[in-house]
């Protein structure tokens, strides 16, 4: 309990420290990739709950990220000006659900407010996750992996083949997302520091919510399902319902990340929905130690940052494939739980229980 809030505080201090360091060393350009890494971390945190705690794999989470990102992109770029005399558009305008802006060439665009688009994106994600989850979560192991992989491929082909989604070009000119007056998610250079903090505050809140959940009655039931499903069933746990709700929750995390990153980048392309993205998310969850929120967050932030800075060059996807193989062979408990790391933690007087805080 106490430990949880201490760790959250330490994370917050670390986030501030990183920003201050980039300021001092005049490397604020790193903040862009750190912001993007934060949003990808959000996907991985949700997937960690699903894989590490509920014991269900998903090779289709890039699909949910894309559902979030594309829904928001379409709804906030679709120009309603030709329909502005229609009653429904008028009603929406009077309710403040629309916003008027200028495009890159000074033309007028009337589009849905990003908040409304965000809420619709989440609603669609929940609906899709529900419909997909009910049949798919009856499967186990390889079969579940293949079914979710299939879902991911379908989403990828849909966004690639539909003119509404911009086909291979994706959707660009996505407007900023005004969260509150004066606070907006956008890729504008002048907003870089603010956006870094918006992203990391969202991640910190997500971590707190997940740690709370894992330490609750629901978290205990999820770990029980993971450990001995028949026994959990016999204790009165509706295992199908718990798996489905966890699946939906992790999909909502992915979609939320998709929405925010799309507004931050000002667009989204089909590569975000690709199977390799899903594989990457799974690889990072594995590298983090499956059932470790802190491990997943650390790996997600570091690996995504390195990838986004281009350190892996054209081998980017190969690196994540290799990480998956190496982790499975040599560190199935995750990098932070290797004996070497435990020794380092002990040397640093870093409590060894820290990495497995959630699982304890």
């Amino acid at each position: 309990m106490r430990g949880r809030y201490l760790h959250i505080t330490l994370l917050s201090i670390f986030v501030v420290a990183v920003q201050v360091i980039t300021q001092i060393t005049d490397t604020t350009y790193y903040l862009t990739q750190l912001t993007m890494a934060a949003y990808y971390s959000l996907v991985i945190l949700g997937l960690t709950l699903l894989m590490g705690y509920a014991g269900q794999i998903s090779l289709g989470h890039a699909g949910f990220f894309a559902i979030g990102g594309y829904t928001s992109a379409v709804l906030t770029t679709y120009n309603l000006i030709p329909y502005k005399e229609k009653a429904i558009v008028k009603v929406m305008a009077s309710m403040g659900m629309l916003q008027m802006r200028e495009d890159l060439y000074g033309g007028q665009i009337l589009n849905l407010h990003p908040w409304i688009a965000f809420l619709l994106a989440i609603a669609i994600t929940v609906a899709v996750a529900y419909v997909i989850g009910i049949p798919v979560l009856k499967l186990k192991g390889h079969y579940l992996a293949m079914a979710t992989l299939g879902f991911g491929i379908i989403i990828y082909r849909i966004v690639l083949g539909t003119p509404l989604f911009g086909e291979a070009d994706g959707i660009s000119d996505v407007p900023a997302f005004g969260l509150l007056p004066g606070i907006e998610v956008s890729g504008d250079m002048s907003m870089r520091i603010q956006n870094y903090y918006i992203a990391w505050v969202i991640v910190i809140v997500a971590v707190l919510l997940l740690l709370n959940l894992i330490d609750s009655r629901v978290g205990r039931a999820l770990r029980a399902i993971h450990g001995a499903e028949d026994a959990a069933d016999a204790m009165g746990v509706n295992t199908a319902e718990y798996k489905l709700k966890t699946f939906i929750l992790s999909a909502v995390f992915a979609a939320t990340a998709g929405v925010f990153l799309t507004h931050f980048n000002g667009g989204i392309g089909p590569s975000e929905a690709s199977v390799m993205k899903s594989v990457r998310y799974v690889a990072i969850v594995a590298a983090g130690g499956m059932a470790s929120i802190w491990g997943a967050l650390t790996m997600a932030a570091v690996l995504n940052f390195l990838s986004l800075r281009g350190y892996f060059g054209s081998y980017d996807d190969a690196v994540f494939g290799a990480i998956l193989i190496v982790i499975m062979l040599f560190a199935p408990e995750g990098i932070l739980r290797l004996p070497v790391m435990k020794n380092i933690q002990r040397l640093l007087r870093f409590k060894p229980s820290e990495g497995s805080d959630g699982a304890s």
Partner: protein
Amino acid sequence: MVLLDVKGLSKSFGGLKAVSNVSFTVREGIIKAVIGPNGAGKTTLFNLISGVLKPDSGKIIFKNEEIQGLEPFQIAHRGVSRTFQHLRLFPGMTVLENVMMGRHIHSRSGFFAGMLNMPWTRREEKGVRQKTFEILEIIGIADLADKEAVSLAYGQQRIVELARALALEPKLMLLDEPAAGLNMRETADIARLITKIRDMGVTVLIVEHDMSLVMNISDEIVVLSYGEKIAEDVPLAIQKNEEVIRVYLGEDDA
């Protein structure tokens, strides 16, 4: 009062009749045992009552309500708990957490309440913890509370399973070979605990190979052979029943 009423229960796997037209009743507050040679259908019968398997025909009436066809978790909600022949403790969880799972149906916190760590969920967790400790004290394993359950000695793990089943505060407890793999002293400990649980007002239905255990603690015994009931009586009468002796010792030796 009849707590559990099994009527004409049948279950086949392919051509094999694992349980064939079995009927018996369990009165409230007793220990009833189901015995029989290997392959007699004891485990199938157990899985039918606990909802793991669905019967081909017949009825299972618990507290005047038909429960055949319900899922195991729904049957648990109606007040039936069970242990497993092959231990099914939750790995990576302490004894306390394992037994806390028995309180699942008596608590309510869901996903949102859990994520937001609402004050009432914290209170609820505290209550669950307290009640679980009481159960551990009753069973006599409070000193093991913080140990990882699956790292305990085999005999202790059996007792943790018993505590977990008791934490559910069941009306009926199903015990699947609770003495399997235990030595004589451990078997005697388990026997004492089962009797104690019965004396707390919990009805017990037990499947067991260990004859001495069954004869010592059971109030009534049902004998199965090749999926059919061949006898149902008090232990003394069962010991003298010729058919039972024949089934157990082989026809030529009888």
